[in-house]
């Protein structure tokens, strides 16, 4: 939720890079440990790491992996996927706010709404499909946003004279109700949150561009969208399309699979992996730098999905990121910065901050 001028798209604008740590789960994936992997991404100069929660045997909870990385890192944003359909919105909100605390304000949320009969059966609920998926996502995001605002920034007063730890007038009930046309089982969430306002005020919320737009999750509800196209050539057009559809208030992050020539093996020999549906770059580091520079001229950021985390990170950190920085295409990572800083977002006031005492909790 940002103002239009916060995302500029003029050519040459320095962007940011994220990398998906898929595979660096409980068993360390390609790395000896999750700690090693996330530190390698941070020292390579990535602005954000993302943690997939797609159900794969052996993969631990994405939000917990992000939390584990919090105290180990200083600059890199930590952005887990958290499902909105078969989770409790109140728990999701608290967990994400907590991630913001343990990472010093570097948390974000990729709100997912995957259609999954397996996930539905696991929690004994009906499978959700079609337009109802976006409704669930929109509801869950709105619950989180209200709860994050439900403590004003200065609600904890620790006023020794009056013996008050909090100022009750600065706590607010969220009083969320699912809309009348809600396709799934309707629900309500009372609030306030059980944790004070996140350090960033509001965590940046990301979602797949295909989930956002008219009749789906509203563009106002998200800070950035992840844009997918079948080939690298089609990505730039898709980015422009999404921008014109959603407006400039939403940051655009392009999705790219990456396979590089590495350790004497040509990318072509290594790229036999499975089809992800995302655009794929296979080739030299120099070629990738050119492609990323071109993409960053259109998008606010690019998220890379490496074929092998260890191999690609090695090439990316030695050859690609330094080259992009040299060309001025990459923003410098901010020591102790927030994820909002990465996205160029200011810290918003709580939506309840101006409300009179009459609407404060309990009145």
């Amino acid at each position: 939720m940002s103002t239009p001028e916060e995302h500029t798209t003029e050519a040459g604008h320095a962007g940011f890079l994220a990398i998906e740590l898929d595979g660096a789960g409980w068993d360390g994936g390609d790395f000896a440990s999750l700690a090693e992997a996330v530190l390698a991404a941070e020292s390579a100069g990535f602005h954000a790491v993302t943690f997939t929660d797609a159900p794969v045997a052996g993969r631990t909870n994405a939000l917990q992996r992000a939390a584990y990385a919090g105290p180990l890192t200083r600059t890199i944003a930590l952005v887990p996927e958290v499902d909105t359909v078969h989770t409790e919105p109140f728990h999701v909100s608290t967990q994400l706010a907590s991630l913001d605390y343990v990472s010093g304000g570097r948390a974000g949320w990729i709100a997912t709404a995957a259609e999954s009969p397996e996930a539905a059966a696991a929690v004994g609920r009906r499978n959700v499909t079609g337009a109802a998926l976006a409704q669930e996502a929109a509801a869950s995001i709105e619950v989180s946003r209200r709860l994050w605002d439900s403590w004003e920034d200065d609600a904890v007063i620790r006023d020794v004279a009056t013996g008050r730890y909090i100022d009750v007038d600065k706590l607010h009930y969220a009083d969320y109700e699912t809309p009348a046309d809600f396709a799934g089982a309707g629900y309500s969430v009372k609030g306030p949150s059980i944790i004070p306002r996140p350090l960033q005020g509001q965590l940046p919320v990301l979602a797949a561009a295909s989930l956002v737009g008219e009749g789906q999750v509203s563009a106002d509800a998200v800070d950035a969208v992840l844009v997918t196209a079948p080939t690298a050539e089609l990505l730039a057009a898709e980015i422009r399309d999404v921008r014109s559809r959603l407006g400039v208030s939403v940051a655009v992050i392009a999705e790219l699979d990456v396979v590089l020539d590495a350790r004497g093996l040509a990318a072509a020999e290594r790229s036999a992996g499975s089809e992800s549906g995302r655009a794929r770059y296979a080739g030299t580091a120099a070629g990738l730098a050119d492609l990323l520079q071109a993409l960053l001229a259109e998008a606010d950021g690019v998220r890379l999905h490496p074929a092998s985390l260890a191999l690609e990170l090695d090439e990316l950190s030695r050859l690609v990121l330094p080259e992009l920085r040299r060309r001025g295409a990459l923003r410098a990572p901010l020591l102790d910065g927030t994820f909002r800083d990465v996205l160029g977002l200011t810290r918003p006031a709580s939506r309840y901050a101006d409300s009179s005492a009459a609407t404060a909790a309990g009145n």
Partner: protein
Amino acid sequence: MTQQSRAQSDVFVPTGQLQFGVFFQGVNSGTIWKAAESGSQTDFESFRRIVQTAERGLFAAFFLGEGLRLREHLGRPHALDVVGRPDAQTMLAALASVTTNIGLVATQNTTYNDPADLAHRLSSLDLISRGRAAWNIVTTDNAWTGANFRRGGYLDHADRYRHAEAFVETAKRIWDSWETAEGPARNVLHEGQHYTVDVTPRLPRSAQYRPVLFQAGDSPEGRDFAARQADVIFSAHPKFDAAVEFRKDLVARSLNAGRGANAVQIMPASEFILAPTADEAAAKKEWVRSLQIGPQQAVAYLEQFWGRELSEYDPDGPLPEIDPVVEETSETRGSGFHGAKARQLADQWRAEAKDKGLSIRQFVTSRTARMDATFTGSYSAVADQLAEYARVGAVDGFNISPWLIPSGLDDIVNHLVPELQERGVYPTEYRGSTLRDNLGLETPVRTADEAAEAVRAL
């Protein structure tokens, strides 16, 4: 006796040893926030400092509590006490990266979670921490808390443990579903009164097989549930005689449940106020209490039972002469009484306070002291006292709530722990790297078939 035979024996055998846990409550009236040295209750650095101090003191476990709705007082969020805390498992996953041996215990509710989701997240924490996770099972079930969740207030209080048991059995089946460390995982199906679960678990066993189970809940049903399901009970009975009594009770319940007399360990909630000498400790206690129960807290304590505002009453004057109104928000603070019972209670309290010449503040202090879980004294005297608990096996350890964050464990780790080590009743090193190792618990041996059988028997 070997560990194996000790756990299965039908005679209780004290280990002669104590373990410490730290309970970072996060939300309570016991943590002093008014002192100069009181730190943040939410900053990560406070948590890091406490857990690392605990680990330096070879504590077995670091606990986080849980409350899924903000406490209220007379229909509004309660303003006087420490409030607002991070999600337990998220914080523990972060703390796993800055610790190596201490157990990480998440208090998590069985009423407002889904078994498959919670089981997955707990094994996730167990894998991320390399075998140090535990679940403190609580059953808080009121509709007022339910207002924050999809299901709302669906559960009758009387059903809380029946539901919890089906929940925990389902979680255990999920954890048992990997035949070997490599798999494959078996599908787990549970069709219960409140939940249907149909899941193919995704996570393998951890270094300690599965998370350790703690239980906190003191009713007879709660104790029987612990005797059947838990590894450790987080009890509310730290005083010596009560602790001995509780041990007897739990041993009987464990044998009844078909488990050994030593199968369930006991760690009561407790508080320590220590100093080099008894006099200094007593003075310190007075200071601690004056900050825990200030004038506003004393009045608020009565308001909770009176069900109305009493701010016009002088905390240093007599108890209010007006009568309580029907308390409609009692569940919002856990205690409190309804209607006629409140009036009777008020009469009783007024008589008692008048009799003893106590002001509101003095009366409330004396009342809360009755439920006092505090050990006060010199380091060596308290160490002697605790050694006696170890000798008779009254408890297996103590779950300590520090009254100051983040420096509240310093005294205990710097002074009490060495005294206990000298007396041979406290570990001098971590026995292993998992919580199960450090508590001396057996690794569960249960096949997926046995687990399925246990559920059918419910």
